[in-house]
């Protein structure tokens, strides 16, 4: 039987390395068969690469003003990462004294600008770096969506270019003093995830919130995401089950659109040994609010979904030690 090999430390493989790169920090760097022909073989063999990435000191300097860094992850797409990130941002910034930043590292499908209602904005550069786009005084946002000539344009980039942009987001954006930096990620466990973890390794990531939907197909991907967090040493703050149950607006009966055929997120969290933060019901108005770029929590504060959101957000605050 053929099986996938996991021998190297995924964090030390550069984004543009040959297929079987042993990782630049490995003892074998520059010396294995796979290194033959790599343009950087001599550099690896000389031992220079055991030192840190030159961007890291700059990232560290910027990030020294950020108190807490939280990733929003999920293995699967379309489960509500961006919507949740936006709600989290809005909820944190409801307190005037709290400064929050949202960084969208989904390079190929940036949704954050639309969800926050700032899709037509652009990024301005100043002597202190790129200024984030502000939704309100204390909520700054950075996304590749602000840099495209039109929302129809696709970014067809391979890994190394995406990583370059992520490092710029971290070192060149003038975030100012932040209490929270929320990072919205694309689905999967690939370049963007490795890069963000690599660049923030020194400054420290406070944890990751993992979003899922109740069906097994999504949970499968989420287990992989939690496995990823363990491999790279990120603390999982907890799992949120989104789109959990749907209340018919006509007869008020609750039904399960995405049936938790294997016990849902709650059981998965228990099996994986991570905290379960709660479930948010599927409410069509959440998607509508996202399309129109308004805060669901502000528009429908009395809905059950809002209550669920607030409960989860309070738990996250508590875990982060507020």
């Amino acid at each position, binding site marked *: *039987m*053929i*099986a*996938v090999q996991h021998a190297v430390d*995924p964090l030390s*493989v*550069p*984004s*543009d390395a040959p*297929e079987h790169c042993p990782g630049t920090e490995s003892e074998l760097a520059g010396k294995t068969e796979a290194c033959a022909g790599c343009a950087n073989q001599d550099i690896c063999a000389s031992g220079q690469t055991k030192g840190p990435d030159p961007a890291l000191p700059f990232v560290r300097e910027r990030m020294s003003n950020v108190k807490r860094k939280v990733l929003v992850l999920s*293995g*699967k*797409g*379309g489960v509500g990462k961006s919507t949740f990130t936006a709600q989290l941002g809005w909820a944190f910034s409801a307190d005037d004294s709290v400064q929050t930043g949202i960084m969208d590292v989904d390079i*190929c*499908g940036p*949704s954050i600008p*639309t*969800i926050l209602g700032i899709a037509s904005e652009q990024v301005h550069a100043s002597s202190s770096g790129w200024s984030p786009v502000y939704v309100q005084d204390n909520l700054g946002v950075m996304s590749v969506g602000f840099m495209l000539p039109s*929302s*129809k*344009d*696709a*970014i*067809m*980039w*391979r*890994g190394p270019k*995406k990583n370059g942009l992520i490092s710029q987001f971290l070192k060149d954006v003038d975030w100012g003093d932040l209490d929270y930096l929320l990072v919205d990620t*694309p*689905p*999967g*466990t*690939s370049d963007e995830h*490795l890069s963000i973890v690599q660049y923030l390794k020194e400054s420290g990531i406070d944890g990751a919130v993992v979003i899922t*939907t109740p*069906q097994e*197909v999504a949970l*499968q991907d989420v*287990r*992989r995401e*939690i*496995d990823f967090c363990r491999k*790279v040493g990120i603390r999982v703050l907890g799992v949120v089950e989104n789109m959990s149950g*749907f209340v018919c*607006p*006509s*007869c008020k*009966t609750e039904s399960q*659109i*995405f*049936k938790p*055929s*294997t016990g849902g997120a709650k059981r998965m969290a228990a099996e*994986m040994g991570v905290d379960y933060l709660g479930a948010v019901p599927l409410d*069509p108005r959440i*998607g*509508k609010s*996202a*399309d129109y770029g308004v805060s669901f929590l502000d528009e429908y504060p009395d809905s059950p979904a809002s209550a669920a959101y607030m409960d989860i957000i309070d738990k996250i605050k508590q875990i982060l030690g507020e």
Partner: protein
Amino acid sequence: MAAIETPVAKRLKTIKHVIIVCSGKGGVGKSSVSVQLALSLYASSPIARVGILDVDLTGPSIPRMLGLDGRGVLQSSEGWVPVYADGSETRLGCMSVGFLLKRREDSVVWRGPKKNAMIRQFLSDVRWGELDYLVIDTPPGTSDEHLSLLEHMAPVHSRLSAVIVTTPQAVALMDAMKCLSFTRTVNLPVLGLIENMSGYVCPCCGEVSNVFSTGGGQEMARQEGLTFLGSLPVDTELVTLLDAAEAAMPEQAADEPPRRTERTFRLIDQYQQTSSSKLFKPIVERLINALAGGGVGGDETVQA
């Protein structure tokens, strides 16, 4: 075209049509549409041979949906043997990175170059044999996997086409537009657009709720001159069928463990009883027609 004889070209020689299922956004139902497409093509004729290739390397869902979780890939002298969903009939082959993982919760943490290599292997090393259709399920976005696919399949470009899947919300449509821009840039003909998760029928009172709004896909197809292939509502029956593919197994295993083939026929039988399969049938008919050279009917496929 024949001048370039890469291993991929050689391997894909015996494949008549390659359909790439894509969407800019995640979770809109690419995998479930791919599976439905494969099942419907399989059922379209008693001799149709279909392959389904899952290039979503960091989140493979196809094995689960076909009830093939936990199966492994075997090496033969002619290459990797796909996992056949219909057992001994071998008309529905499947290949996914999910079959290569030791434990199903193992994550594949790969950067671009390794993904590229895996895709190349999938295309050059899998012994598909004669196929009428190869359905390729892609991950969300327009990045490494997509570029690699197109690059490696360049020698068979004339046999490639794409189906775009979206949900009706604005956020998903925006990403679908990006996907469309991608297909135009790489000169990939688009067979049409499918709107998924368009409405949900309450099992209690039958009221249709537009959970993720509605009509957006049709509107986009109209504006962009694409063929609108149809809209599929949220079908809980289908979600359950594709999700709990495993749940059907123990019952079967208790009865007669060795009869694996029976079970997969059950998947297709069960599928054909869902309401989605009835909605999908005309979509597939149009696709088969279009691939046979008849056009999709109405608007032609997109020009570059």
